[in-house]
C-alpha cells in the first residue's frame, strides 16, 4: 500500500489541520506517513498544499503520483491535476465556482454540511476528512475513535458535531462517488507500525539542542528555520532555557559566543541570509576557540531567493565562511532522527575540539514530518571536552598542548583569569604580533582538523559490490535517492550503489576511495546547480565524477525524478 493525498487551498484555510487529522488517523492505525508542505511566502491566499504519503512500510520522501486531492480553492482543483493517477479523484467544495468536467472531479457539500450539520463552517475540515476517507474506502469506525480523541480537549459537544459532519460527508460520498478509487483501502487492517511520534525536521533539531543541554538559544526569525526556535521557546520555561529573539543574526551569534565563553552550551538557528550576517562572529568563535552550534535551514538563494522552498546550495559557503583559516565541523542530516543525533554530536564535537559546529538542514527537512519510533533522549551523552583541573601555575586559556586543545576554564572560576581575544594571541590570551606565536597558534588550529575527521562517521553505503554506478549524495536527498536506487536495482536489474554523507566536514574519504576504485561510474546527486559536494570530494580526494545530477527548482526530489535522471546517465 502506498497512497498519496494532497490537500490544497489558500493560506489560512486550514489545510494543515486537515493534514494533521489525516496523519493522525493513519498513524493511529499503524501505518507510516510522510508529509511535505508546499507553501508560498504570504500570510493569506495563494495556492498552498500539504501532501501526505501513507504506506504500510516506512517512507522517507514524497512521490509524484497523487491518489486523492482535496481542493479548498479553485487553484487547488487544477494545481496538481497532472500528478493525479488515472483512477484518482479531486474532491472539492461545491461552493467553489467550478463546473465538474472530468471523471475525477467530485464536488461535495463540504462547507454547506459543516454549517448545516455541525453548525459552523469551521468544521469544513472534518467534512473534507469524511469525504476523503470515503473515496479510499477507509473504514469509518477506525477514524471515529481518532477523531474523538483529537477533539476531546474541546469538549464532547465539539467532538460529536465534528464526527457527525465527517460521517455525513462519508455517507454522502459513499452514495454519490462512483470512481474506482474507493477500493484502495476497503480491506485495510491496522498496520503493525508502533511509530507514533510525528515530528518535523525543525522539531527534531530543537529536541537535539535541548537534549544536548543547550541553555542559551538566540535567533532572529527566518524561514524555514523559525520552527526550530519556536519549538525551543515553547519549552524554555519548563526546561529552564534562556531564549531571546535578537535584533539581528549578528547579535544572535555574538550572544551565543558570549554565553559559551561563560560556560553555557549555546545554539543559534537561521537560514542562509542570517548565516551570512553571522559570518564575522563565526570567525570570532574560530579564533577564540569558543564552541557554538549553528543550525542553517537552507533555502534557495542568493539573497531572498525562494523563502519557503528548499535547496542545498550553502555547502561550500558554510565550509569557507569567514576570513582566515580555522577548524569547524559540518553535518547535514538526512531525516529527523538523523537530525536529532547530528545536533547532539555537533554539541559534543564543538566542546571537545572548541570549534564552531554547523548543522545544515533545508526547508524540506525543516517542514516535512514523518512518524518515527522516538528520539533517543536517554542515549544522549554530554562531552564537555577538556576542562581546567587547576594544574597550571597560572591558567592560560590557549596553552599549547600536544593535541592543540587547551583546557577550558570560565570567568567566575576563582583563582583563574580567563582571557580570550579575536586578535592573534599569546597562550595567556593577550594579544601579540609575534611571528613564532602566530605560527604556533595557527598550527594549534590546524592540528585539530585530522582529529575531528577521525571522530566523524564514514558515509552510509548501500548496494552491491562492484556496482555499475555509485551515486554520491548528502543531507536530505537521502530518502528519494535511496528509494530510486532500490527500485532500479530490484525492478530493473541494475547494480547501483548509494554512498550518502551526513558527516560532511572534515570529509572522511575512506569509502569514497573504495567506491571510486570499485565502481564503473560515480555520479553526484545534489539539490543545487553546481554540484558543491562533488567539488568538495574532488578537492579532498582528487577524484572527478562521471556525471552530476542537479535539481534547483526549490522543490524536493522524488524517486521518479531521480530514476529518470539516473537512467539518462546510464544510457
Amino acid at each position, binding site marked *: 500500500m502506498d497512497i498519496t493525498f494532497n490537500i490544497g487551498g489558500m493560506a489560512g484555510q486550514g489545510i494543515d489541520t486537515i493534514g494533521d487529522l489525516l496523519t493522525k488517523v493513519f498513524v493511529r492505525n499503524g501505518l507510516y506517513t510522510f508529509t511535505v508542505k508546499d507553501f508560498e511566502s504570504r500570510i493569506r491566499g495563494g495556492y498552498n498544499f500539504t501532501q501526505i504519503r501513507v504506506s504500510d512500510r516506512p517512507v522517507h520522501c514524497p512521490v509524484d503520483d497523487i491518489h486523492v486531492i482535496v481542493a479548498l480553492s479553485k487553484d487547488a482543483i487544477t494545481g496538481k491535476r497532472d500528478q493525479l493517477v488515472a483512477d484518482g479523484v479531486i474532491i472539492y467544495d461545491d461552493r467553489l465556482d467550478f463546473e465538474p468536467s472530468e471523471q475525477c472531479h467530485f464536488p461535495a457539500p463540504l462547507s454547506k454540511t459543516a454549517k448545516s450539520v455541525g453548525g459552523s463552517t469551521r468544521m469544513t475540515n472534518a467534512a473534507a476528512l469524511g469525504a476523503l476517507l470515503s473515496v479510499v474506502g477507509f473504514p469509518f469506525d477506525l477514524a471515529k475513535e481518532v477523531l474523538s480523541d483529537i477533539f476531546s480537549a474541546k469538549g464532547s459537544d465539539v467532538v460529536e458535531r465534528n464526527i457527525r459532519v465527517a460521517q455525513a460527508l462519508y455517507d454522502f460520498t459513499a452514495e454519490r462517488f462512483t470512481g474506482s478509487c474507493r477500493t484502495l483501502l476497503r480491506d485495510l487492517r491496522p498496520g503493525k507500525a508502533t511509530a507514533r511520534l510525528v515530528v518535523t525536521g525543525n522539531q527534531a533539531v530543537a529536541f537535539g539542542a535541548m537534549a544536548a543541554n543547550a541553555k542559551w538559544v538566540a535567533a532572529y526569525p527566518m524561514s524555514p528555520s523559525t520552527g526550530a526556535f519556536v519549538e525551543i521557546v515553547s*519549552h524554555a520555561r519548563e526546561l529552564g*532555557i534562556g531564549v*531571546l529573539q535578537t535584533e539581528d543574526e549578528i*547579535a544572535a551569534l555574538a*550572544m551565543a*559566543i558570549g554565553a559559551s*565563553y561563560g560556560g553555557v552550551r549555546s545554539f543559534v538557528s537561521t537560514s542562509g541570509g542570517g548565516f551570512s550576517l553571522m559570518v564575522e562572529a563565526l570567525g570570532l568563535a574560530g579564533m577564540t576557540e569558543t564552541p557554538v552550534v549553528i543550525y542553517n535551514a537552507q533555502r534557495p538563494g542568493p539573497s531572498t531567493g525562494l523563502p519557503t522552498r528548499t535547496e542545498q546550495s550553502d555547502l561550500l559557503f558554510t565550509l569557507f565562511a569567514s576570513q582566515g583559516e580555522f577548524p569547524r565541523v559540518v553535518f547535514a542530516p538526512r531525516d529527523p532522527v538523523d537530525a536529532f543525533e547530528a545536533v547532539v554530536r555537533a554539541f559534543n564535537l564543538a566542546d571537545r575540539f572548541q570549534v564552531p559546529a554547523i548543522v545544515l538542514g533545508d526547508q524540506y527537512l525543516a517542514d516535512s514530518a514523518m512518524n518515527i519510533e522516538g528520539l533517543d533522549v536517554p542515549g544522549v551523552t554530554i562531552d564537555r571536552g577538556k576542562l581546567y583541573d587547576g594544574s597550571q601555575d597560572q591558567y592560560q586559556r590557549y596553552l599549547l598542548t600536544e593535541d592543540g586543545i587547551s583546557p577550558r576554564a570560565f570567568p567566575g572560576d*576563582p583563582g583563574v583569569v*580567563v582571557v580570550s581575544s579575536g586578535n592573534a594571541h599569546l597562550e595567556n590570551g593577550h594579544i601579540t604580533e609575534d611571528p613564532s606565536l602566530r605560527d604556533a597558534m595557527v598550527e594549534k588550529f590546524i592540528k585539530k582538523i585530522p582529529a575531528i575527521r577521525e571522530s566523524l562517521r564514514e558515509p552510509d553505503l548501500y548496494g552491491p559490490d562492484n556496482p555499475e554506478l555509485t551515486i554520491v549524495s548528502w543531507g536530505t536527498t537521502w530518502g528519494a535517492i535511496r528509494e530510486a536506487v532500490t527500485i532500479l536495482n530490484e525492478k530493473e536489474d541494475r547494480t547501483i550503489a548509494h554512498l550518502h554523507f551526513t558527516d560532511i566536514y572534515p570529509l572522511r574519504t575512506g569509502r569514497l576511495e573504495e567506491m571510486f576504485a570499485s565502481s564503473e561510474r560515480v555520479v553526484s546527486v545534489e539539490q543545487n546547480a553546481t554540484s558543491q559536494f562533488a567539488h568538495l570530494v574532488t578537492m579532498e580526494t582528487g577524484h572527478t565524477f562521471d556525471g552530476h545530477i542537479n535539481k534547483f527548482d526549490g522543490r524536493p526530489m522524488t524517486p521518479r525524478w531521480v530514476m529518470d535522471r539516473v537512467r539518462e546517465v546510464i544510457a
Partner: protein
Amino acid sequence: MTITAEELAPPQKITWCTGCGNFGILAALKKAVMELDIPRHDYVLVSGIGCSGKTPHYINLNSFHTLHGRPIPVATGLRMANRDLRIIVHTGDGDCYAEGLGHFIHAARRNVDIAVFVHNNGVNALTKGQYSPSSPRGYVSKTSPPPPGAPMDPVNGVAHAIVAGATFVARGYAGDQKSLVGLMKEAITHRGFAVLDIIQPCVTWNRKLTWRYYNERIYRLEEDGHDPSDRIAALQRAMDSSERIPVGVFYRGEGPLLIEGLSVPEGRLRDHATDLKLLEEIIDRLRV
C-alpha cells in the same frame, strides 16, 4: 577580598600614545575595581575593536576582546550565562556608535545588567584618524568628503541611551579622575544597563576635541541643579546645544532586568542541566 594594584598590573606593555585619554580611563578603572568590594574573579571586561578595545590587555582581569561593534551582544550572552559576573564593556565611539549602534539601542531597551564604558574621542584613532560617528559636523579628516568635512551631526550617545531605556546614563571625563572613579563605581554596581560615555581626547589625531577644548567647556551636572531622577530633564541636558558640556549622572532609574523577563533558571545558567526526563515527556506529547 581587596584587590591590590599588583594583582591588576598590566599583563602586557601599553601601546597607547603618550598623553592618550585612555590612560586616565585605565587608571580610574583600576581604582574603581580596587575600591569596590567585588571578588576579582567575578569581573569580566568585554571589549570591541579600537584603542578602547585594548583596555583588557592592560589590567589583569577576565576578559573577552571581541569584534568591532559587537562587545555588547557578546556581553549580553555572557550575562545570561552567569548572573554573578560584573561585566564591563569597553567600547569606543567608532565601535559603539557606528557598527554597534543597533546593539547599543537594543541592549538599553532590554535593560541588560551590564556597564558600558564608551571611550569617546570623536575620531577613529587606531585606523589613523578618520572621522567617527561622534566627530563634529565639518570635521576634516582623510576620509571626510571635501569641504566642508564630515557632512553630518555626531551621534548623541547619551541622548540615545536615555531615549532607548538605559537605566543609568552618565558622562565622565578622562581628565577628571575623582569624578570618573565615582561614576565607574556607580555604573558597575548599577542594577541594569549602565552607560558611561567617557570623554577622552585623542592627542594624536583629534586637533579639535583636545584637553583644552574640554577643560574650557565642561561643567558638572550635580553642581548645576540637575535632578537625575527626571528622565525628561536628563534628555534636555543631553540635547543641550550650547557650547557647555555636562558631565556627571544624567539619568538614574530602575526597570526590570532582561534576565528577569527570560526563562533563565535561578542561580547560574552555566550550572543548570536540562531535565531529560521532562524533555522525554515533552517529546511524548507529540505521539498520536
